[in-house]
């Protein structure tokens, strides 16, 4: 990584310091309607078309709780082994911001719906237990679009536009207790936790969990303390770390930065920091002081939520298989080794492989494409593999064409290119790019004859029984056919003529 003055290398930093992390993850629920009104929640609609008096905060409008969102919140709490509050309230978090219609956010404060849980995360084959402090319900804000500034930031902007479509979309905020003991694996643990959470939420069917669309957002709290010390150091909170890779990078950077500051005898400023995807660095935002006072109080426009024991048990019965149980089951079904499973999970591709297999592909082929070809491309473009513009069904479709001999692995890579470039379905890409292998024996035969005529010495070797020499002729034919030939068929044709 780039080293700025004052930064200490990650590994070196961890010889002296012990990192303590706290992760706050916001998840947008994919309920049909918003948290407190009947407006739709779909992503990408024309600005300010999914609004009403309630989510615009017009005078006199009142909120009504979305029962489906409460149900999702309880299910998330249960999946995280939390206690569910038999009685809880919403609270108002008061602060002024233009994209927040009421200038208070309806959230939960000291009475979260779910609290005191834990979840078990696989980190390189080890199980790491992350304690959950709470999961609470709240509403999202609108979005500000700053116009005229350099990078869409408010600084330097000429004016700002406000889109309230997102205002009032249900959010669940999941907060961990301080994560201690991760040591040198802090960044991996954090990444694995977020990946695990995403998998869990997907399996619950409560959110589409698309980090690139902001439906899952992560804030990373981090502090360092000298190895062996019990009390926590001063923490920073890095906001909106919005991909798995960024979670890892943000932690690595903050560890290096804080170690540099502490190593120089200076103190960490308790502050909000921003992560920059382009540089992998964090920069200081506003300083967190006592001046930030949200004046929480119970939301008087809403009545308390009572989660009866019967209801909670009913919801518990709807929970899907726990991720670890599910992984064990899939491993057995696929006949995969521990190492192979670890690779799949580590790449965040478990669901992708599972869905590709479900779409008809063999487990081996599904794993091969997702872990090699597609992971490489994801890394090249700096996104998560799940964020690539290709579906498991596409991958299964490409493999089916390989299995049918219509394309080979090399041609398949061209099909991936086309699908990822938005050129259409695998079938459409094959047709448009002319990627199908030549299966016309007359054309292939002619090419084989030309290759034999061009290399009589090689042909003689084969005639003499050195079948391995056929490779050179196959290569020549494939070259002439620009790769669009079935190498097995070419081999057959060569051998039938020379042996």
């Amino acid at each position: 990584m780039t080293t700025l003055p004052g930064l200490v290398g990650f590994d070196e930093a961890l010889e002296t310091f012990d990192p303590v992390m706290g992760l706050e993850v916001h998840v947008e629920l994919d309920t049909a309607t918003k948290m407190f009104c009947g407006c739709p929640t779909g992503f990408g609609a024309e600005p300010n078309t999914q609004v009403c008096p309630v989510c615009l905060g017009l005078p006199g409008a009142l909120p009504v709780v979305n029962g489906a969102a409460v149900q999702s919140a309880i299910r998330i709490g249960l999946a995280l082994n939390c206690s569910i509050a038999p009685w809880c309230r919403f609270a108002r978090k008061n602060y002024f911001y233009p994209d927040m219609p009421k200038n208070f956010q309806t959230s939960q404060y000291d009475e979260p719906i779910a609290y005191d849980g834990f979840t078990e995360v696989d980190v390189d084959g080890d199980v790491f237990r992350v304690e959950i402090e709470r999961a609470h319900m709240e509403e999202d804000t609108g979005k500000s679009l700053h116009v005229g500034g350099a990078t869409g930031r408010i600084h330097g902007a000429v004016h700002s536009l406000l889109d309230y479509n997102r205002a009032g979309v249900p959010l669940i905020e999941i907060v961990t207790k301080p994560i201690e003991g991760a040591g040198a694996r802090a960044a991996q643990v954090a990444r694995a936790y977020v990946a695990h959470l995403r998998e869990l939420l997907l399996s619950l069917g409560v959110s589409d969990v698309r980090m690139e669309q902001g439906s899952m957002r992560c804030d990373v709290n981090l502090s360092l303390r000298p190895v062996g010390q019990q009390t926590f150091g001063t923490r920073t909170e890095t906001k909106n770390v919005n991909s798995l890779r960024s979670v890892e990078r943000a932690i690595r950077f903050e560890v290096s930065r804080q170690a540099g500051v502490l190593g120089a005898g200076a103190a960490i400023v308790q502050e909000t920091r921003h992560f920059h995807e382009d540089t992998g660095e964090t920069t200081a935002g506003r300083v967190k002081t006592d001046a930030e006072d949200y004046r929480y109080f119970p939301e008087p426009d809403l009545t308390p939520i009572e989660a009866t024991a019967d209801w909670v048990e009913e919801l518990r019965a709807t929970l899907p298989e726990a991720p670890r149980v599910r992984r064990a089951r899939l491993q057995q079904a696929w006949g995969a080794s521990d190492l192979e499973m670890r690779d799949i999970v580590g790449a965040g591709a478990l669901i992708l492989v599972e869905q590709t297999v479900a779409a008809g592909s063999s487990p081996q082929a599904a794993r091969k494409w997702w872990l090699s070809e597609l992971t490489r491309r994801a890394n090249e473009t700096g996104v998560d593999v799940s964020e690539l513009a290709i579906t498991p069904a596409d991958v299964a479709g490409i493999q089916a064409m390989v299995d049918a001999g219509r394309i080979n692995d090399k041609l398949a890579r061209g099909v991936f290119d086309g699908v990822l470039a938005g050129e259409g379905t695998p079938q459409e890409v094959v047709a448009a790019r002319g990627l199908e292998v030549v299966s016309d024996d007359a054309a292939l035969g002619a090419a084989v004859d030309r290759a034999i005529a061009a290399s009589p010495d090689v042909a003689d070797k084969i005639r003499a029984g050195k079948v391995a020499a056929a490779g050179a002729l196959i290569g020549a034919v494939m070259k002439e056919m620009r790769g669009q030939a079935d190498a097995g068929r070419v081999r057959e044709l060569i051998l039938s003529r020379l042996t």
Partner: protein
Amino acid sequence: MSSEDDLTRLSATELAERLAAGDTTSVQATQAHLDRIADVDGNVHAFLHVDVDGALEQADAVDRRRADGELLHPLAGVPIAVKDLLATKGMPTTCGSRMLEGWIPPYDATVVERLRAAGLPILGKTNMDEFAMGSSTEHSAYGPTRNPWDLGRIPGGSGGGSAAAVAAYEAPLAIGTDTGGSIRQPGAVTGTVGVKPTYGGVSRYGLVALASSLDQAGPVTRTVRDAALLHDLIGGHDPRDSTSIDAPVPPVLDALDGDLTGLRVGVVTELGGEGYQPGVRARFEESLELLTKAGAEIVEVSCPSFTKALAAYYLILPSEASSNLARFDAMRFGLRVGPEGVDAPSAEQVMAATRAAGFGSEVKRRIILGTYALSSGYYDAYYGSAQKVRTLISREFDAAFGRTDVLVSPTTPTTAFEFGAKLDDPLAMYLNDVATIPANLAGVPGLSLPIGLADEDGLPSGLQVLAPAMADDRLYRVGSVLERLLEEQWGGPLLGRAPELASSTGVGR
């Protein structure tokens, strides 16, 4: 006096009977009230907006429905005035504030929706203290309403406009809202009837929130029966208000003119005595005698925490208000003011400049109070303690209602005071609501009705009846009997003794 003037002197019940009998039309009745408004409102200033065309259109529509033989609500065709705190689609809604000057809501409050569906033409929007903060309408950004009994005096507040409109025969019915007495106190000082229903009994959807846990809309009328009819119309569950009670409206109409024999009437020690004007006390004592004669049993009850009600109220209300009023930020609706001398102001600077220019002094005072009371480090001492007092008050109501069926007190300590008398002394102003506030804190219903004129100044005073939550019918049971007995003594309604208002035509508005 023309026949149209006669229509304005009728109670809503009488007018409804004539409409049902075909003796008059809603267009005639509505026009009569519009004429009355044109004639006297220059003096009274009960209205902030009069919707002549809209009201006549609605009147015509209901006349047609009646002609078609449609089964209509008993109050169909009776015009009504609505406090400017309720959102009215297509009609200005200012809440008495510069902040909302020119704002036209894109939606109707549930109460307004119910009025329209029942065919009550809406005459216009009535004046009020800004965002319902005040007891005199002197805090309206558009100038005060004057008391029809004496144009030099306040009509009460915050709903002085609704009460004065009804008292001045500009409307037979009005909608008010009551957070700490804003329906009942104006009723008492204008000689009219006002009811604050049980909290949750009438939908708050579309009612611009002052203090969400205290606000309640209710009827403003000249008779107890009219109030019951209006209460029955606007009450009942609304799924758009989470605090709305999912139960039928209490049987307020069946309760009218019942029998008081054996009814236990509690007189609250803490809501009377010292600080109450002698004339107000005298009328109150006489009313107790009438109730006794009607068969009721008078019981003295003590509710010691009621003496802390005012203090608790002035922490809870500003706390909630400071948050409720945060949305007035110039971003989406209402006033927008740029800060002076700033070239390219930020959103925050525009918010601050707008709020500085748009809110009046009383609103700012309460926002500051509430912001302080909710602040970290002060929350427990102020908001937290106030909530504890609130709980105590609820418990004392419960205990009192264990021994009594209803509680009574003078509605206000004094009759209407002169303009400016308490404007510079917020505490003195707040004390007007000392008797009405406990009901809001506990969510119980209350009714104020006129009980005569104080000897010292010849101005109306009122008696307040309080009942347990969702026992609103008891208010009407007591109110209707006491009203009948008093009117028998007076030989007619108290408002008959109010001075005739001079025409303001030519005076200008």
